[in-house]
């Protein structure tokens, strides 16, 4: 019985969850939306996704290996893969390759590594990449290929997104009811048959991913529901006040990045609050800001900005919104 025994403090058993499983779980949840984008945008979508993913992984590897000089490079943990796909989801499918690579570089190098890598970054890296591209290359970033351009890539026929069409028309004094024929019907909006960024078009596919993540307990429902609920309520109030100059809530929910943002971007664990209460505050904030930007701001779409702005508030929220303690003595 002379055996060397391992000594360590309790607990001595561990759950079988791991960072990898969490990250790859998110990847699996994104597959339906990815397939829809391949279906509607064809070759362009495939090129975009591959380029974004490969460059995100390569930059993560290079930075860890040569700049941070880490012994073990952690590109297999799945987090760079998630960032790559999310970045692709936020770009139009006809974006030139060199811009995709620049976006991936900004996402990984500036958005993530400069803060110390996984878990340290305050802002969603993919959104940092997207917003950088949007500000630096506004023309390329807002010319959206029409769905169905299966084999065309850079030369795809482009058009505006439903959100941009409506914003433009409302500005010109047209009423919301009169422009409905210019935009796809709700069934098309549900399925994803509209112009837009790669991953944002199909509400159905995104909701399937949401259900999967809930089932795997990767995220809780609080952030997506509070974001989407707030968007619906806020835009609903505006619409009820004046249905002629405001789009209806369903339109707001189904267009632009609302679903993608609420389900996959705002729920990024690293950049969202820790307590359930905090998460609801965060989600409501994103919802309000999104509608404010969409309705009153200069840009037709505001989800990315709304999320980034609320990301900045997360440390504050974490500091003041605490989970309810057991046996808390109410003073």
């Amino acid at each position, binding site marked *: 019985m002379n055996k060397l025994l391992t000594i360590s403090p309790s607990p001595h*058993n561990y759950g079988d969850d791991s960072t990898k499983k969490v990250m790859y779980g998110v990847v699996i949840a994104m597959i339906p939306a990815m397939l829809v984008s391949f279906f509607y945008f064809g070759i362009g979508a495939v090129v975009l996704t591959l380029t974004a993913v490969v460059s995100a992984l390569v930059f993560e590897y290079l930075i860890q290996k040569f700049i941070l000089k880490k012994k073990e490079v952690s590109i297999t943990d799945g987090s760079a893969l998630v960032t790559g796909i999310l970045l692709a989801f936020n770009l139009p499918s006809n974006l030139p390759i060199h811009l995709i690579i620049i976006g991936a570089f900004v996402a990984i190098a500036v958005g993530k590594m400069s803060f110390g890598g996984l878990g340290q970054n305050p802002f969603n890296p993919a959104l940092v990449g997207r917003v950088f591209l949007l500000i630096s290359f506004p023309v390329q970033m807002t010319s959206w290929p029409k769905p169905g351009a299966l084999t065309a890539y850079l030369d795809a026929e482009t058009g505006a997104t439903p959100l941009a069409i409506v914003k433009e028309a409302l500005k010109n004094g047209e009423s919301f009811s009169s422009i409905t024929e210019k935009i796809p019907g709700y069934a098309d909006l549900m399925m994803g048959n509209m112009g837009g960024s790669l991953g944002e078009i199909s509400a159905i596919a995104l909701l399937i991913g949401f259900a999967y993540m809930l089932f795997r307990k990767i995220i809780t429902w609080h952030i997506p529901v509070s974001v989407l609920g707030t968007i619906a309520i806020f835009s609903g109030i505006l619409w009820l006040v004046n249905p002629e100059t405001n789009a209806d809530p369903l339109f707001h929910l189904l267009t632009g990045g609302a679903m993608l943002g609420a389900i996959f971007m705002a729920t990024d664990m690293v950049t969202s609050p820790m307590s359930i209460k905090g998460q609801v505050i965060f989600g409501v904030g994103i919802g309000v800001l999104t509608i404010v930007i969409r309705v009153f701001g200069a840009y037709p779409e505001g989800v990315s900005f709304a999320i980034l702005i609320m990301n900045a508030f997360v440390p504050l929220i974490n500091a003041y919104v605490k989970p309810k303690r057991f046996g808390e003595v109410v003073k």
Partner: protein
Amino acid sequence: MLKTFPKGGVHPPENKISAGAAIETLPLPTTATIPISQHLGAPSAPTVKKGDKVKVGQIIAQSTGFVSTNIHSSVSGTVQKIDDSIDASGYKRKAVIISVEGDEWDENIDRSPELKKEFSLSGPDIIKKVLENGVVGLGGATFPTHVKLSVPKGMKADVLILNGVECEPYLTSDHRIMLEKADEIIVGTQILMKALDVKKALIGIENNKPDAIEVFSKLADKNPGIEVHPLKVQYPQGGEKQLIKALINREVPSGGLPIAVGAVVQNVGTALAVYEAVQKNKPLIERVVSLTGKSVKKPANYLVRIGTPVAELIEASGGLPDDTGKVINGGPMMGKALNSLEVPVTKGTSGILIIPELEARRRPVQNCIRCARCTQVCPMGLEPYLLMTLTQKSMWDKVETNHALDCIECGSCAYTCPADRPLLDYIRLGKTTVSKLIRARKQ
């Protein structure tokens, strides 16, 4: 809907592989090592010296304060020496070491197996008996039972809660005594109710022990005032505060004791020990210990004399498996890893768990991905990731204001963390440091 506690909690694999093994009496050891500190509180003072002859049940160390208790010889023989021995935490502590000769019991102990139901002692006399016989909480915390029964002035218990939860994976000693000693436990419960002057006792048993629930439900029907409540399996339901919340929906205030909400919690094993102490005059000199683990040849539940080396239990179950990596005193969530198999079984040993090499080592620590799972599973509503970071940065005032002292060290946070962060290690360090600082401040 089965009751459970509402906040946090995890459900680790139950692995109750020794549940079917009836209690077996382990042969006497050749030497018994009986530490003089087997309970929470002041160590007892030895009353024997080298060369003294002792009998089973004779006092060998006396209580040295209110929070302390008596210690009895679990064997008959000659005191070899009083010396340091390694205890389950790896510390050297004083112990009375006795060479065993025969098995001669103190004549006052009633060794007959008959159930003795009637008792006439008053509350204070019961408490005295409990102290005399060295009964402590057998769930693991080993808090002297007479202290828990002595309700402070101005407070009043209105319910006794009997803990038959056994939420730690693997362990089955409580389960077995509930099946095999149910009548005694019920009488013990009635004695405890008398001592506390309460009319109601609730027995909480997790739903993974349907046989025990059945046995006790039948007995409860015949004994007014005693109720059995099946509970949903959820760790750490055996924690006093969680069990009280689950059963009577009262929340023990932060920093307070269960009595603050009128409840006293006792383990089923303790109720059995109280029965034996009061009805049979038998001190706490033996207990049931599970010997279990995935590679153990014969997982079992042994009735063991206090002071028996752990190695003898392992031998009785077919020896140490070849793939052993860790031997744990207690369960996998809160137990302590042993550094020696010569460590004796004490009053607080509920099980010995042998973990294979493959599962014994920790996984490499990764970056926190801020997934908030540690926060979600913490039954005390703490933020483990934050407490760990604050401890790492030595920000002790923040560790304190974030209520590190509320932590019950259940390990749910570290169990759950996908990044395998050693959360509880740091929280313990934070707790110890903060307690020291608070004590220094008070002086």
